[in-house]
């Protein structure tokens, strides 16, 4: 079984990213004529449509029955926002699991109104070290802006994810991205995917 959580804030594209991952897994299963493989995709989110915490769970495997990943059993956390990466990661990442994190903050109203303090990125990375998980952190929003729009940040993150050992290929992901993003943004998104892929590879090699 392969478990991945895409965590972020409503409006950042985490749901689309999780659907692209699930679609890539289904396509691989169809092409391999693997009828035993099952995919489940579930979401946990707060009440707000925009600006609330969102975590999409994707489970891929044969013994998959329900859409929620149990605690300590996520292989990968794809975190589109630091605080939300921490919220989902602390609960779900398995020992030895991989956390890929966009470091661009989206501060909650609780911080703006002075009722809470946002943890620093350094503290978050340190927290993941303490629970034995490997963090790759970079400014995915900045890369997306360089590619043409901040909105392709989720695809930059998918590019980074493609470095992991996955039950489907980077080409599978690219194929689904082409189908799922608006037509006029395909080239921006494919570039975003490549940039994210290169960035994470470079960070892992360092």
């Amino acid at each position, binding site marked *: 079984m392969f478990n991945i959580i895409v965590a972020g*804030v409503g409006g950042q594209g985490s749901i689309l990213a999780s659907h692209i991952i699930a*679609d890539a897994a289904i396509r691989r299963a169809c092409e391999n004529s693997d009828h035993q493989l099952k995919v489940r995709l579930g*979401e946990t989110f707060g009440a707000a449509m925009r600006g609330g915490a969102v975590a999409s769970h994707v489970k891929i495997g044969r013994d*998959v029955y329900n859409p929620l990943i149990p605690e300590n059993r996520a292989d990968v956390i794809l975190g589109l926002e630091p605080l939300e990466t921490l919220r989902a990661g*602390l609960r779900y990442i398995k*020992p030895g699991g991989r956390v890929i994190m966009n470091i661009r903050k989206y501060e909650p*109203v609780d911080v*703006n109104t002075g009722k809470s303090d946002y943890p620093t990125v350094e*503290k978050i990375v340190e927290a993941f070290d303490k629970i034995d998980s490997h963090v790759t952190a970079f400014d995915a929003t900045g890369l997306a802006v360089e590619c043409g729009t901040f909105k392709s940040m989720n695809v930059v993150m998918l590019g980074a994810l493609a470095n992991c050992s996955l039950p489907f290929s980077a080409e599978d992901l690219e194929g689904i991205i082409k189908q799922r993003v608006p037509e006029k943004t395909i080239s921006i998104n494919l570039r975003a995917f490549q940039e994210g892929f290169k960035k994470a590879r470079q960070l892992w090699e360092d």
Partner: protein
Amino acid sequence: MSLMKDTEEGNILLLMGNEAIARGAIEGGVDVVTAYPGTPSSEIVETLARAAEDFDYYVEWSTNEKVAFEVAAGASLTGKRSLVAMKNAGLNVAMDTFMTLPYTGVKGGLVIVVADDPNAHYSSNEQDTRTAAIYAQIPCLEPSDQQEAKDMTKSAFKLSEELELPVFIRSVTRLSHASGNVKPGSICAAPPKKTGFNKHWKMPYRWNVYGPPGPVNKHRWLYQQNEKAKELLKNEKYTSIFIPDSAETGIIASGLGASYALEALNVLGINENIAFFKTGFINPLPESKITSFLRSLKKVIFIEEGDPVVEKQVRVLAQEEAPNVEIQGKMKDHIFDPCGELNVNIVEETLCKALEIKLNQDTEREDIKERLGALVIPRSSTLCAGCPHLGTYWALKKALLKFQGTHIINGDIGCYEQGGYGVFSSEIKGSPDDSEKYPIDSPYEILDTLYVMGSGIAMAIGQTQSEYTDGKILAVAGDSTFYHTVLPAVMDASYSNADLTFLVLDNSWTCMTGHQPNPNTGKSPTGEPAPRIEISGVVKAMGIENVHVVDPYDLQRSTDAIVKALEFEGPSVVILRRECALQVQRRNRLKKPLTTVDTEKCIGCSKCLELGCPAVIFDTPSHKAGIDKLLCVDCGLCSQICPVSAISGKEE
């Protein structure tokens, strides 16, 4: 929608539970589809509305669930196959007809899909509507995954016609809003059915509960149909049973509970030792199969999402048929919490305790995780950047400052209900005093009561008639809610001359559930032009004389209008009209917002933060306000609030 048309053999579709139900309806040959939107059920009819051009059925967003239920029922009486979808709370609105229609039964297949919300992710309560299906004495199915959701919906139409009863399908958030692989089936290509109406169809006065032989005899017929259902469903395909030779303990599960149980048994490595019974039918239960299951075991554990609905029925059965079996679940000495929702972790831990198995857990790591948990601060839910309700709540707060006393603001259901969510990290304590005034330091603290659709204004009437004189009495509701259940209360306020002020937060769409059109939108469910029924005309026709219409982006005018309404003795209405900012952005995306903070002028008073807009940010080190350029839509609200005119950008 191509997903809905795909019929190729061997294909696998990734469908959301709600899409799977929609697919099942199309495969089952549905003719009439109705709903009032409600999370987590809305995508059923959204999907069917999108696919409507490819298939020949009628689809509507009804004004409320009772109307939706009756439209679907009316179609069924003429022989059409119909489906009505709603959320848990929606069933309460439809309850009157829901309880009575089964007395006459139906002709064309009528399928009722209700999406419950264990853990109240998007709801005011956690009610388990399977109880309502049993109460109404109609068949109830509970799918455990997306494939079953599709298959059960498809087969429910036929079952409904065979039994001449409405058939109930209970979904939950984790099914409706989760996706899974589904093998599509063939789409029912039956020729268009001829409609007909016979008032004495098979029985005298068939569609008239009062007509002879009257309601008591029709109730008796309903009992007979329930007996017939038990007989008819002896070989239904939604039960699965596994009994290993040596098993002494077993699990009876349904719906998502069954899917969590299967995973937990696998992980614990005891799936070959524990007997397992999954039931798809909640009413009638497969009693004879359950009886033999009980008799083969010493102990049975119930795993179901929501109330102990299956457990309660089986406990009664066990008393008669298997009195020695030990039963554990959510009832007496419960091992599962009847509140909240289940997941694999909960099921694993509970099974370990009940079966005296050691839970494999890294306690050291868990301790570290718990300590690190302090870093995870809450993320309070907010209205969107540029939401017109932000302007409304600001104007309301300003208007109320002109009046002494402890005012009561009754909330209602829609995006604006977030005015009652509070800021998660503020620590509020209860107080025993009878009347106490609290400052409103954020729009998220403005609403004082919050229950269900339409309850706000009617509660306000009660407060005015109870001679509450410590302050002003108000209520708010959105445009869709206005048509859904507020109308009768407005009539009541007018008739009883209640001294209250009612604000209609009119943003043209049913936004919280995903921007469905309503009678105030001017669009049909499939996007065609439709009549727009304007709210000010309706309230005036109901006899309300003090009516104001203002733009909530204009804070001064909005404040003045609310003050005037509050000064008026008797019922007054202020309609704050401005289209949802998200819808405007969807049509016409702003390239680059012009709003900026002049940091030279900004005095760091943080007044702008009180607006509660997520695009207004504050830099603590420099003590200056700022604008999040990714979120800002140039609504101009914050610049109207700044006391030193440091925020500018939108053309004045």
